[in-house]
């Protein structure tokens, strides 16, 4: 059976620095996959490779039955990928609502009132509705992160890729975020989620992969992975020493 | 033989274009600034040379001793006073400010020197020539070409062998981190512009000896310099010389076919290279 997303020996190097080293894994349709690994391990680069912001030095990427290795970011988005950026990339000169509208009309394929209504719903869900008329450049970091999620949701993707959206949230906010992502997952959307806030991740994902030095070093059921000695060692220095 | 002569003349003409291009390339290399007023600054250099030769009665080449430092000083002040304020992520401010500068320089020259074409008198140098193997080559074009090689070799030396060049490269690589090395970016950029306008002054005087000039020709000189830079490949000084030569040869070949085609042939050569090799013929290889 063909996977919904498949990475086949994907590598990317900048000079002597390798950010992806023969990465291979499959994501079946409807799965929620968690990605962990230390800072600088190549997690965001992996997203860039999947979404087409970076193009791989070698290897292939298949999405929804198509080889998208050489497709542009825009084309992959229209094929059903949407992502949030770890370092938020808002359209700063436009309002929060307009940011959402761009995603809904360009990537989500909606028009007019339908698009407007959908954006309002998503903004309500991500708790940005009261900031709808604020210029995106004036949001706090937290607000920008929420805007990243908002835009990704407004794109109505088949594959939703989230890059560290839970950092800095209070417990209540984090709980609401988990519920939001569970709801999206329940609708059948495939999710890949990079996150440092491990308890949030574990509350949602079906499976976990661990990345370090651009390599996949572990893959499997979330709890088992978290308890494995190599993860304890490389990822959570504190526990390993304690 | 006739065609060999055409190619030789074109090659030597390319030396002049490389001089036009060197300053442009230098400024872009250090601060990613594209100076639309570059052509007008070349013409300004020519006019300053003209004033020095007429007022002091100096030979145009001796005028360099005065004009080069004056232009360099002007460059430093210009950079620190105006252009530094335009640098940033947005490409619009430097473009529009240098465009405004171009209009100001052009019209100031017009106001000061009138629209009449002028020329510098270099005496015997203008007509002297050397003959070899059946070819007669003008001494002045030869001197211009030699100057271009010397200028580029000097710039290359400054860039890769001196502390100033190291500061240029570091600031160009990463202006923010370069500051942590104690480098004042504004001062470094000022020095880069000073150096660029020093070269521009040489280009202006070589131009002024070779042909007649008037305040309106700056745009054309900018374009020749720009074409040489793109043909040669961004950030490659020797490539710029090659770009100038290719442009010069294309022009003389065009002129040989039909005098009206000289400039058109140069532009077409540029567009063809842009279509086939968008990064130029000798792009700098970086990691």
């Amino acid at each position, binding site marked *: 059976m063909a996977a919904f997303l498949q990475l086949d020996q994907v590598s990317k190097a900048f000079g002597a620095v390798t950010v992806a080293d023969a990465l291979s894994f499959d994501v079946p349709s409807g799965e929620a996959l968690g990605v962990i690994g230390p800072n600088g391990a190549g997690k965001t680069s992996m997203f860039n490779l999947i979404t087409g912001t970076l193009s791989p030095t070698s290897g292939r990427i298949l999405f929804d039955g198509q080889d998208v290795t050489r497709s542009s970011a825009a084309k992959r988005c229209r094929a059903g990928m949407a992502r949030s950026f770890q370092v938020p990339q808002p359209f700063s000169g436009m309002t929060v609502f307009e940011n959402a509208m761009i995603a809904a009309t360009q990537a989500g394929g909606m028009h007019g009132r339908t698009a407007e209504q959908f954006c309002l719903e998503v903004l*309500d869900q991500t708790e940005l509705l009261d900031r709808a008329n604020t210029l995106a450049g004036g949001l706090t970091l937290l607000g920008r992160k929420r805007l990243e999620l908002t835009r990704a949701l407004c794109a109505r993707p088949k594959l939703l890729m989230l890059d560290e959206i839970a950092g800095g949230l209070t417990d209540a906010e984090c709980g609401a975020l988990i519920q939001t992502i569970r709801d999206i997952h329940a609708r059948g959307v495939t999710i890949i989620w990079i996150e440092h806030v491990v308890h949030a991740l574990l509350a949602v994902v079906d499976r976990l992969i661990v990345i370090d030095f651009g390599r996949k070093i572990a893959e499997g059921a979330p709890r088992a992975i978290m308890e494995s000695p190599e993860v304890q060692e490389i990822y959570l220095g504190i526990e390993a020493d304690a | 033989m006739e065609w060999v002569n055409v190619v030789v003349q074109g090659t030597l003409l390319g030396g002049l274009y490389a001089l036009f291009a060197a300053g442009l390339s230098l400024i872009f290399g250090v601060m990613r600034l594209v100076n639309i007023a570059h052509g007008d600054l070349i013409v300004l250099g020519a006019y300053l040379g003209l004033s020095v030769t007429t007022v002091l009665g100096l030979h145009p080449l001796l005028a360099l001793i005065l004009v080069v430092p004056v232009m360099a000083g002007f460059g430093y002040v210009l950079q620190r006073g105006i252009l530094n304020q335009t640098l940033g992520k947005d490409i619009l401010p430097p473009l529009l400010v240098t465009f405004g500068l171009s209009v100001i320089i052009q019209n100031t020259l017009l*106001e000061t020197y009138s629209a009449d074409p002028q020329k510098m008198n270099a005496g015997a140098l203008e007509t002297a020539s050397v003959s070899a193997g059946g070819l007669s080559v003008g001494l002045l074009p030869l001197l211009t070409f030699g100057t271009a090689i010397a200028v580029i070799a000097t710039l290359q030396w400054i860039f890769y062998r001196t502390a100033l060049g190291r500061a240029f490269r570091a600031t160009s690589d990463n202006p923010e981190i370069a500051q942590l090395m104690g480098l004042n970016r504004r001062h470094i950029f000022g020095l880069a512009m000073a150096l660029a306008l020093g070269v521009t002054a040489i280009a202006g005087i070589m131009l002024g000896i070779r042909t007649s000039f008037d305040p309106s020709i700056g745009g054309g000189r900018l*374009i020749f310099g720009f074409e040489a830079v793109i043909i040669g490949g961004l950030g490659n000084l020797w490539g710029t010389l090659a770009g100038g030569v290719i442009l010069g040869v294309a022009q003389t070949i065009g002129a040989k076919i039909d005098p009206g085609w000289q400039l058109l042939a140069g532009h077409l050569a540029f567009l063809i290279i842009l279509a086939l090799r968008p990064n130029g013929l000798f792009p700098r290889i970086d990691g």
Partner: protein
Amino acid sequence: MNLSDYHVTRTSPAARVAALLGALILIVLIAAPWWAGRADMRLMGELFLYLALASLWNLMAGYAGLVSVGQQAYVGFGGYMLFALTIFGGLHPLGAIALAGALGALIAVPVALLIFRLRGAYFAIGTWVIAEVFRLSFAQVSALGGGSGSSLPVGIVRSLAASRSGREHLSYWLALGSAVLVIAAVYLFLRSRNGLALTAIRDNELAAGSLGIDIWRTKFIVYVVTAALTAMIGALIFLQKLRISPDAAFSVNDWTAFVIFIVVIGGIGTIEGPIIGTLIFFLLRETLADLGTIYLIVLGTVAIVIMLKAPTGLWGLIRSRFDIELFPLRFRVKPSSPSTKG
């Protein structure tokens, strides 16, 4: 919290007042032949054509990030097409103007394919090279007078309207119509889905690309459409001038420098900016015209000072002060019933 408490609107009281005032002004302007003198009408006609050029350049530079210093290529091309199509093609001048636009779009396609390989400032100079190629090429066409140019034959001029005043009225209305058409087109485009995409690209290309916006294609379309409309304006300009030469047709000062100054002074990246900029440009020109070249030095200085001290131009200053839009592009989310919230 109920979503039906909110609605989305793209208009405002200020915009409604502006629309009403705009309509009134337009009626007064249409009626100019009945109240304005011949010289005033000529001046206003020129003003409208500059307004159209400035609005188009602003769409390219201010929204698509395509800073061209070579739009004279299309002004001159349109002018020459008018002459060629009427003299050799026997077309009516109005038909020739329309066809000049279509041909402008056609020639812009290969040009864009070439110069889109250049980035940022190099793109700008690349457009200038193209304009030079156009100028030198048309200078080689001896049928159109080569380097010295040619005049529009009297018969063709007469075919517009029999009387001189009829022709003057018509060319005034054409200029006014083209300015209105261009501004309306820019406004409607920016309000559209594609316009939103264009604004998104201007703000953040990385994010725009990953939201499915085809950046290259969007910019390409803007370039080609702008070229077509600029060529039509060029044809109109030379229909008024009745004489064309390569140097006049492809003048970087007349068709690009002034246009850039207009947009910068008025406010780049806004629809209102070019309108204010055009008014100020003509005001300066009419008051300082006697100064000759000094006037251009003043203009260049004003543009530099504005770019450095107030990069959003005069309209930017006004807008940041009063938060108004005369051409409403912004979406605003409003509570439907203000009483429900404190």
